[in-house]
């Protein structure tokens, strides 16, 4: 999901050129011993680039992810629901900040990462290009999107790169609040009037497939995870994580009395797993390539927020400079 960056291929002309084989061997020994890599330690160029791309895209996803939820903030059905939704959105901003901080330890500034997002060079998770049309979507997003995030992020807590692993531990604690908050909305709607239950079903119908796509292409299609696996950045394959998510989620949906929009979904008693129908990968590719329902809107809003915030950053910098100057002058005068 937020690891979609790990499915991208590294620029071929740069892979593994400048790395000293002895250092590389020592590095792999550290990884194999389950030791952590820290910011100033030697690391292969490709490891650094993979993490820069992965962590920053994860951060971008958190930041863009505030938009679908922000859409319902002023229309939340009660003060309590508004307060919890606001807290959740504030968490997403916090997650973005923890992650930008982790990404910065790899030798690139937050401004540079952010510029990559605004210029469209960096991507974010495909899921945030879907619209949030009803209040029930706040339930479906919390339950399913954050649920999928947890599946993906728990193994990242053991990622070989220390700063990323530490950020993920904080994030996972908070995601659990998000998922419960979303599921509670679904429970309330499912036990409500027929119209409310239908609204919950509609949200599930629209989000189910895009959420499954969050885990990235099928293992047969994704050939880029070999290095990520060897370096213990990624510990489970896309399909393994997707399967775990489906197995955990179907009983939760059944408890709500809702159905899943997959006629081929069935429980295989022999394996103990749910088997699912074919995922429409052409839709996934389209959304990733920039042609999802909301891609343009998400970027427009983000760019506007950046542009409208420029004067605030400039004013803060000018004020800090003025104070620093005054302190300097006062010090000279005192001497």
């Amino acid at each position, binding site marked *: 999901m937020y690891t979609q960056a790990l499915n991208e291929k590294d620029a071929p002309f740069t892979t593994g050129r400048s790395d000293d084989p002895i250092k590389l061997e020592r590095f792999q020994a550290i990884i194999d011993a389950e030791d952590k890599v*820290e910011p*100033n*330690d*030697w690391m292969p160029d490709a490891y650094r680039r993979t993490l820069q791309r992965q962590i920053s895209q994860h951060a971008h996803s958190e930041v863009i992810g505030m938009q679908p939820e922000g859409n319902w903030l002023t229309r939340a059905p009660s003060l309590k629901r508004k307060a919890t939704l606001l*807290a959740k959105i*504030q*968490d997403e901003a*916090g997650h973005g*900040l*923890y992650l930008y*901080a982790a990404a*910065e330890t790899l030798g690139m*500034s*937050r*401004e540079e990462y952010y*510029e990559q997002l605004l210029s469209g060079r960096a991507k974010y998770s495909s899921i945030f290009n879907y619209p949030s049309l009803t209040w029930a979507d706040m339930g479906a997003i919390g339950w399913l999107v954050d649920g999928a995030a947890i599946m993906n992020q728990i193994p990242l807590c053991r990622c070989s790169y220390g700063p990323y692993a530490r*950020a993920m531990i904080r994030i996972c604690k*908070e995601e659990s609040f998000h998922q419960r908050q979303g599921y509670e909305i679904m429970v309330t709607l499912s036990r409500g009037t027929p119209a409310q239950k239908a609204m919950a079903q509609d949200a599930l119908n629209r989000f189910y497939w895009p959420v499954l796509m969050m885990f990235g292409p099928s293992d047969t299609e994704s050939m880029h995870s070999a290095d990520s696996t060897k370096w213990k950045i990624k510990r489970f394959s896309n399909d393994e994580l997707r399967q775990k998510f489906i197995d955990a989620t179907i009983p939760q949906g059944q408890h709500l009395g809702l159905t899943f929009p997959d006629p081929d979904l069935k429980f295989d008693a022999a394996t103990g797993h749910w088997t699912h129908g074919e995922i429409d990968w052409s839709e996934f590719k389209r959304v990733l390539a920039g042609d999802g329902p909301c891609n343009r809107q998400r970027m427009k809003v983000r760019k506007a927020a950046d542009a409208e915030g*420029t004067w605030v*950053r*400039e004013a*803060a*910098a000018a*004020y*800090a400079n003025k*104070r620093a100057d005054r302190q300097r002058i006062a010090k000279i005068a005192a001497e």
Partner: protein
Amino acid sequence: MTEPATPLWEVFIRSRSGLPHKHCGSVHASDATMALQAARDVYTRRGESVSLWIVPSSAIIASDPADRDALFEPTGTKIYRHPTFYEVPDEVGHM
């Protein structure tokens, strides 16, 4: 990009009285006051802290990982610094 980069600050949290401040992450802010406010918002939303320290990242002096062996290895051979190196006669009992 014409804007200058916003300075980076390291954040240390005391989770409750009696415990030391511990590094928890970093924030960007133009000045110390804003850094403190940002750290409060980013790192202490769920009662994680009773006290915050904010330090300009540029003020941190760190050892170089390349010097790790030179700096820390010598203690490996000085086992006589550990209490378990010494034998206390049984008759003396616990010491």
